[in-house]
C-alpha cells in the first residue's frame, strides 16, 4: 500500500459532554493528488471534519496525520494548508493581488518572487487582468476564483474546499465545477471537498466519503458509491432509488470478478426475480436497490420474462426524461424513461416493469428494515 497523504485516525468531535458526537471515530486515508469529497446532509459532521483537518477546531480525540507527520495539535497557521470558504472570505480591505499575496507574505517570500507567483496564480484562474481591482467589484464566480488562487499560490499541503460552489447560481456552478477539477488535476493538489450536492461529488471526486451522523457510511470511488452502495442511507442519498425488502434464495451463479453472485430473490407481493449481491447472502433477508432509470418501462406487455404489471400513478416530465411512478400491488415504484415524441403515458395507463438482474443490487449491510424482518 502506498503511503497516504492524509490519514485520519479515530477522529472524534464532541461539542459538549452528553451530546451525540458531531464526528464519531472517523477513519479515512487520502492518497496523494486525490480529490476526496465529504458528502452528506447538513449536520452529518463533514464541515466539522474539514475544520479539524484545517486546525480551526480541536478534535476531542483521534489524530490527523499528513505526510507521515502527526499534526493533530499543530497550530492552524503552521499547517501550511489552503482553504476556500463558502463565503469566499476575501479580505475586503485588500485588492485582488494583495489578497492572493497574503499567504506568500506570511511565508516571507521575497517581493519579486511574490509578484511572479501571484501573477501565475491569477493567470491560472484566468483573472490575471483583474489584479488591481477591489474584491467587492467582482462577481461571485470571480471572487471564488480569487479565493482558489489565494489558497493554491502557497502550494498548500492540502487544499480544503468548504462548499465552495453553493453560493453560485446553477449554470456558473457547473462551469466552476469543471474548472476547479481541472486546476486541481493540473496542480495535483490533494484536496478535501465538503459538499451536500451529490452531483458535484460524483462529477469531481476521485473518492467520495458519504457521511451520516458523524460516521462515514461508505468510502469509495463515485461508481462504487453509486453502483454498489453499502447501506440504505448511501443508496438513498446518492441518486434516487427504489427499495424492496427481499428474501434471498439460492445462488444462481457467479456474477463478476469482484466475487459477486446472482441470486433468486423473492419480494413480498411482487414475486421472484434475479438480483446481484456479494457472496454468501443465500437464505438471508436484505434490501434490494433498483435505480429508477434502470427499471425498464413499457406500455404494452413485452415478450420478456414475466414483467410486472402495474398502473401509472404519477407522471412528471422534465424535458429530457420522464419520471413515472408505477403502482404494483402495494408497492409504488419510481421509474424513468426517455421522452418520446408523440403521446406521453398518462396517469391510469397500464405499465409493465422489468429489470436486468445486474441492475437489482442487494445491499450488503442489513438495514434497519432487514433486521426488523429477521426478528
Amino acid at each position: 500500500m502506498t503511503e497516504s497523504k492524509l490519514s485520519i485516525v479515530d477522529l472524534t468531535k464532541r461539542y459538549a459532554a452528553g451530546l451525540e458526537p458531531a464526528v464519531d471515530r472517523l477513519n479515512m486515508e487520502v492518497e496523494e493528488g486525490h480529490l476526496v469529497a465529504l458528502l452528506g446532509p447538513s449536520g452529518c459532521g463533514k464541515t466539522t471534519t474539514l475544520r479539524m483537518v484545517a486546525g480551526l477546531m480541536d478534535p476531542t480525540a483521534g489524530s490527523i496525520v499528513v505526510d507521515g507527520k502527526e499534526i493533530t495539535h499543530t497550530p492552524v497557521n503552521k499547517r501550511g494548508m489552503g482553504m476556500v470558504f463558502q463565503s469566499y472570505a476575501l479580505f475586503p480591505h485588500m485588492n485582488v493581488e494583495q489578497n492572493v499575496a497574503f499567504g506568500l507574505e506570511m511565508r516571507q517570500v521575497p517581493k519579486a518572487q511574490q509578484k511572479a507567483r501571484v501573477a501565475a496564480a491569477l493567470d491560472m484562474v484566468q483573472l490575471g487582468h483583474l489584479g488591481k481591482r477591489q474584491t467587492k467589484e467582482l462577481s461571485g464566480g470571480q471572487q471564488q476564483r480569487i479565493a482558489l488562487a489565494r489558497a493554491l499560490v502557497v502550494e498548500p499541503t492540502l487544499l480544503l474546499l468548504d462548499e465552495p460552489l453553493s453560493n453560485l447560481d446553477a449554470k456558473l456552478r457547473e462551469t466552476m465545477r469543471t474548472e476547479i477539477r481541472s486546476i486541481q488535476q493540473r496542480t495535483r493538489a490533494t484536496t478535501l471537498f465538503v459538499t451536500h450536492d451529490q452531483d458535484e461529488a460524483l462529477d469531481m471526486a476521485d473518492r467520495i466519503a458519504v457521511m451520516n451522523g458523524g460516521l462515514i457510511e461508505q468510502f469509495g470511488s463515485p461508481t462504487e458509491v453509486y453502483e454498489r452502495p453499502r447501506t440504505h442511507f448511501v443508496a438513498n442519498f446518492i441518486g434516487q432509488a427504489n427499495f424492496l425488502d427481499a428474501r434471498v434464495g439460492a445462488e444462481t451463479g457467479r456474477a463478476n470478478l469482484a466475487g459477486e453472485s446472482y441470486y433468486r430473490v423473492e419480494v413480498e407481493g411482487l414475486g421472484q426475480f434475479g438480483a446481484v449481491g456479494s457472496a454468501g447472502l443465500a437464505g438471508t433477508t436484505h434490501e434490494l436497490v433498483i435505480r429508477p432509470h434502470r427499471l425498464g418501462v413499457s406500455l404494452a406487455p413485452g415478450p420478456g420474462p414475466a414483467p410486472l404489471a402495474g398502473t401509472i400513478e404519477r407522471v412528471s416530465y422534465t424535458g429530457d426524461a420522464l419520471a413515472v411512478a408505477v403502482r404494483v400491488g402495494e408497492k409504488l415504484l419510481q421509474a424513468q424513461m426517455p421522452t418520446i415524441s408523440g403521446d406521453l403515458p398518462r396517469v391510469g395507463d397500464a405499465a409493465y416493469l422489468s429489470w436486468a438482474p445486474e441492475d437489482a443490487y442487494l445491499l450488503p449491510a442489513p438495514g434497519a428494515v432487514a433486521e426488523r424482518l429477521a426478528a
Partner: protein
Amino acid sequence: MSEAKVFKPRFNPAKPAFGLLVFLLYLFLLAPLLIVFVVSFAANQYLSFPPEGFTLKWYGMLPQEGTFMEGMKVSLIVAVIVTLIVLALGVPAALALDRFEFKAKAAVQSFFLSPLLIPSIVLALGMVLLFGPLKLTNTYAGIVIGHVAITIPFVIRTTLMSLATTDTSCEAAARILGAGSWTVFRRVTLPIIQPGVIAGGVIAFIVSFDEAVISLFVAESGLPTLPVQVLRYVENSADAAVAALSVILILISLAVVVVVERVMGLRKALR
C-alpha cells in the same frame, strides 16, 4: 383596453407637511447653537438676547483669558489620553464579547454599558469618595479614569456593531494562510472593524472633551478642565466671551467629525 390611462401625479399634502416637520425639528435642535452664534458677535455688555450691534471683541478676549487656555490644555490632554486608553480597552473587550461564549457574558456586557444608564452625578460622587483616599483627586489620572468609565460604552457599542457585520471566516482564512493571532488582528480584523473603532474613538474624544460633572467633582480645585472653567466663568461674569468660546468649540467638534467623515466615512461606521 381602448383608452390608455395616463398617470397624473396628484398633489400630495403629506409631502410639504413632512418637509415642515423636518424643518421644525432641525430648528428645535439647532436653535440654541444659532443663538449662541449670534450672541457671540453681539455688542451687548451681558449675555442677553436680542443683540445690540456687532463686535468681535469677545473673540479677541479669548486668548487673554488664561483660565480658558489652561482649561483647554487640560481638556485636550485628558481627551487624547482617554481616547487612547478607551480604544485599547474597549476594542479587545468588544472582540471578546463578540467572539467568545463565556459564563456571565450578559452580565459583563451590561456592566460595560452601565455607565450610560447611571446618572453621571452619581458616578461622580462615587468617584470623589473613592479617589480621595487614593490621592487621585485633582490629578490627570483621576479625571482620565472617570472619563474612560463613561466613554467605554460608546467604543464597545460601535466596535460591536462593526464586528456583527464582519465575516469571521476572513480571520480563519488569514490564520490558515499562516498568520499568527496578532498578525490576524492587525492585518485583517482591525482594518475590517476600523470604521466602528474610529467612530467610537471620535465619540469618546468629544464626550471626554465635553464632560463637566465628573471633572467638576474630581478635579475642580486642582485641575479644572475647559467645561469646568466655563462654569466658573459664567458664575462670576456674564459677558459673551463664553458664547465666543462655545462657537470655537462647536467649530472644532464639527471639524473633527467632518475630517473623519471625509477620510473614513463615519456615516458608514455609525450605520
